[in-house]
């Protein structure tokens, strides 16, 4: 068993990280801190999940969220998708393993992956609306969010949701407020089987190795750790029985990265566009300087008078 994060003291103390630990801030630059905090991570072991949804409930409870009563369409997923109130969602897949002939019930806890290279933050136009702490947590700052939905386009995992109530973007915070005072995330705390564990990223990788060895010994030869390099790794990682086929886990992207369309929009287009506008304005200015105004001459007026003479 992985030793869970102990309950910290209830005596008030300073937060373990804050503004001074930002390594990225949307639409603005930050001076990175001299020393990076130890990277944290949440490890979700899909093979240990029993689909009880305690994590979903704990998330709603800790973040004081209420989900609408939905409609049962004959699947376990409830609600049917992530929403502005549901920041984590159990996605159930019935997978027929052709090799073994077994029916496998794959249950993946979906939510923000806290990418090391966050697409949401890259796309965000509002300074400081999305921040990344040096421990790896990516968080939305709602009083700076303008509700444009650019984060939705930037995210390679389809995670952020825009609220119809206050038009702001919502997603898992990795319980930034709990982690700051030494607690583990609410979902991890509530998980009865230790399918969710939380600690430093290194600890999580070690624990994942131990779990993967165990799974391999049980015949899951493609068991592995999902820590996609396309986004420079994530701070929410999965242990998957079939790491060669992540897409069977309710469409978990195989080798995700920030869309090249988003990179082009936020990169070359921005610089080339502003240069083009500046160039057009400069050419106009220079042209006027060199040729002078194009004025109507007295001769032109005379010609017009001659043309209209006797016509009135």
């Amino acid at each position, binding site marked *: 068993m992985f030793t869970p994060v102990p309950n910290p003291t209830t005596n008030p103390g300073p937060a373990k990280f804050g503004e001074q630990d930002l390594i990225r801030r949307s639409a603005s630059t930050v001076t990175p801190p001299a020393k990076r905090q130890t990277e944290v991570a949440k490890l979700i072991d899909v093979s240990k999940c029993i689909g009880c949804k305690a994590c979903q409930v704990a998330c709603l409870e800790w973040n004081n969220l209420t989900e609408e009563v939905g409609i049962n369409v004959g699947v376990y997923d409830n609600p049917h998708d992530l929403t502005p109130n549901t920041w984590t969602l159990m996605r159930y897949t019935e997978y027929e393993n052709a090799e073994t002939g077994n029916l496998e019930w794959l249950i993946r806890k979906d939510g923000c992956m806290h990418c090391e290279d966050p697409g949401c933050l890259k796309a965000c136009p509002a300074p400081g609306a999305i921040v990344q702490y040096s421990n790896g947590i990516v968080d939305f700052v709602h009083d700076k969010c303008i*509700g444009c939905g650019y984060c939705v386009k930037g995210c390679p995992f389809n995670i952020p949701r825009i609220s119809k109530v206050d038009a702001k973007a919502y997603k898992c915070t990795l319980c930034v407020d709990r982690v700051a005072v030494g607690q583990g995330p609410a979902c991890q705390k509530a998980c009865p089987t230790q399918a969710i564990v939380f600690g430093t990223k290194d600890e999580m990788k070690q624990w994942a190795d131990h779990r993967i060895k165990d799974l391999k010994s049980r015949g899951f030869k493609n068991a592995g750790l999902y820590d996609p390099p396309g986004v420079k790794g994530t701070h929410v990682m999965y242990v998957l029985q079939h790491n060669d086929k992540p897409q069977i886990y309710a469409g978990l992207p195989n080798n995700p990265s920030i869309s090249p369309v988003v990179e082009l929009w936020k990169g070359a287009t921005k610089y080339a566009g502003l240069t083009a506008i500046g160039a057009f304005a400069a050419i106009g200015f220079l042209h006027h300087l060199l040729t002078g105004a194009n004025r109507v001459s007295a001769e032109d007026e005379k010609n017009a008078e001659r043309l209209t003479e006797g016509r*009135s």
Partner: protein
Amino acid sequence: MSTEVESGDGVHPGKPVIVDRYTVAARINHWITAVSLVLLALSGLALFTPALYFLTGLFGGGPTTRMIHPWIGVVLFLSFMGLFIRFFRLNLWERTDNVWMSRLRDVLAGDEEKLPEVGKYNAGQKMVFWSMSLLILVLITSGVVIWDQYFSNYFTIEQKRIAVLVHSITAIVAICVWIVHVYAAIWVRGTISAMTRGRVTGGWAWRHHRKWLRDLVTTKH
């Protein structure tokens, strides 16, 4: 060949000759379009690049900028449709426009005597007209795709990514065309009164739109 004259155009002989170029309705239509375009450029640039995010202050902050930009876009689109219907006939491309375009050097030097006589619009103005028509059509279409407040459920994320890229590039091109349009109006002195008071002098018409002036003189009297 059809005449270069429109119903509101007219000539008043005198010293100088005064020529009516735009009706009150056309001018109001133009200025609604102009104001919307400038507001759209400012609010759009604010969301396009962090360096210009401060422009959101003109619109009452980030969220209101995000909310109001698409609505101004709707105003622009409808208003421009009005301009399109008014102006498209005399903006149809003609063979002499190719000659004009091939002598851009003379155009930029202001040597208009070397160019073929021009109707109500020269080839440059026609280019501005048609490129704006096309660009605004692309802008409103791609804009609807990324108007999440009302249309977020109708398009996929991949479609929205492409739409936001197309929208930005098209907007940049439109701003450049707008710079050409405004610069030409400033450089060619005597032009702006056409859109403020609706009138130009006979000398202006003789110098820049001689065919239009000739047609006016023959048809209106």
